[in-house]
């Protein structure tokens, strides 16, 4: 496994740093411009969620290589309040942040793989992967 790079998210400017990190890695891996935009949008959404709901946390980006299948994984980690009803936030139309208006289900659709783990009062870990085609 390659070394992952992380960005601490504490304020809105950190969202930009997280995007930059993701874009650089996506470019390096050879993602096209549309996929680059999708990956950075997913990063924006995840980082925004951390900033809005958890206050602080981090976004980590790692390149992956599974038997020659290359891709990029975004991991969003926080020690915030956690999500009580994961099923609800994964429903279309549940967004409250007023961001792009699609929230986590939108992120899931932008990426190829998506998983979420959350414990109330402990925190949330979301991981999303995009494969290089």
């Amino acid at each position, binding site marked *: 496994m390659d070394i992952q790079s992380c960005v601490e998210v504490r304020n809105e400017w950190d969202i930009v740093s997280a995007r930059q990190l993701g874009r650089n890695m996506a470019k390096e891996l050879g993602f*096209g*411009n*549309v996929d680059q*935009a*999708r990956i*950075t*949008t997913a990063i924006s959404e995840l980082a925004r969620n951390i900033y809005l709901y958890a206050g602080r946390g981090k976004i980590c980006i790692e390149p992956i290589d599974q038997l020659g299948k290359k891709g990029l994984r975004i991991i969003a980690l926080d020690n915030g309040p956690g999500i009580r009803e994961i099923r609800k936030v994964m429903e*279309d*139309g549940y967004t409250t942040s007023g961001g*792009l*208006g*699609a929230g986590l*289900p*939108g992120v899931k*659709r*932008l990426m190829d793989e998506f998983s979420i783990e959350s414990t109330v009062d402990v925190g949330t870990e979301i991981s999303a992967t995009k494969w290089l085609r």
Partner: protein
Amino acid sequence: MTAKDALTERYQDLLSIYLKAKTETTLYKGQQFSRKLLEQQISPEDLVSLHIQVMDELFPNMSDEMRDSFDFLLEAMIGYGFAYREHQSLRDKQQQLESEIEVAASMQQTLLLSDVPQFDELDIGVVSVPAKKMNGDYYNFVKSGNSLSIAVADIIGKGIPAALCMSMIKYAMDSLPDEQMKPHLLLENLNRVVEQNVHSNMFITMFHGVYEPESHKFFYAGAGHEPGFIYNAKEDSFFDLIAKGLVLGVSRTTTYHPYEKEIQIGDMVILLSDGVTECRTSKGFIERDEIVSLIRKYMHLPAQQIVENVFQELDRLQEFELRDDFTLIILKRLV
């Protein structure tokens, strides 16, 4: 060539033709092309990316600013892509819901299917046709002991809530003990069930009757239901089968009046839902007299053929567009 390559090529063709001679024809083709894009579920940012690719191809010496501006446009388009995908997923969900309703409707049909029992003394005919997917009419025959118990109900309200309500009525009726089969008591019982369990904006009209073959008496009671008819063979005339009573579910303490009628050989009991009397033709609502004369026209036939013929004529009069669920039942005393 992949589908995407084909799209790229077509877009490049259209765009270069347009840039050479700016004709309305090419613009029209462009508009048709966008339909094709939607068919293939190409999202907005993909189209922008396609445009960038084609422009790179057509203008290799495009200025950096121009090139970069496209990247910016692409980024700005992502939100629309988000919305587009959400729309698609909601549409899929809607299709799924629709097919679930379809399954529910066919389940309701099987659930509410009531076999017509056989009696030596009686000839029975039934037709019940829903106007939409879910039938808001309900009829039920039960042979209890030697008697025939018969119910016709109409839910005021349509669709799934009405269908759910109907299933509840069916099970409430099934679970009543036999001694409560007296029509007015059965209605009082059902009224309490409906009043307790059904939202106050939903009402049910119902007619319930019991035919006793030994005495040839027909006991009945009604809860606001469309009156049926009695055919008196001796006098060769039709009378309204009036059974007064409040619709089910209005008040907990409603009581119903018991009625009874002696049925002679050749007499008929005709029960219906308001879908029969509210048949609308080009001349307005059909009159009860017209229904009577339709029945008269066919009454030399067996009961099942009478109801089917009456339905077919009324269906034709309405140009085969049922506006309300249609239920018509005829009992004819044979011996």
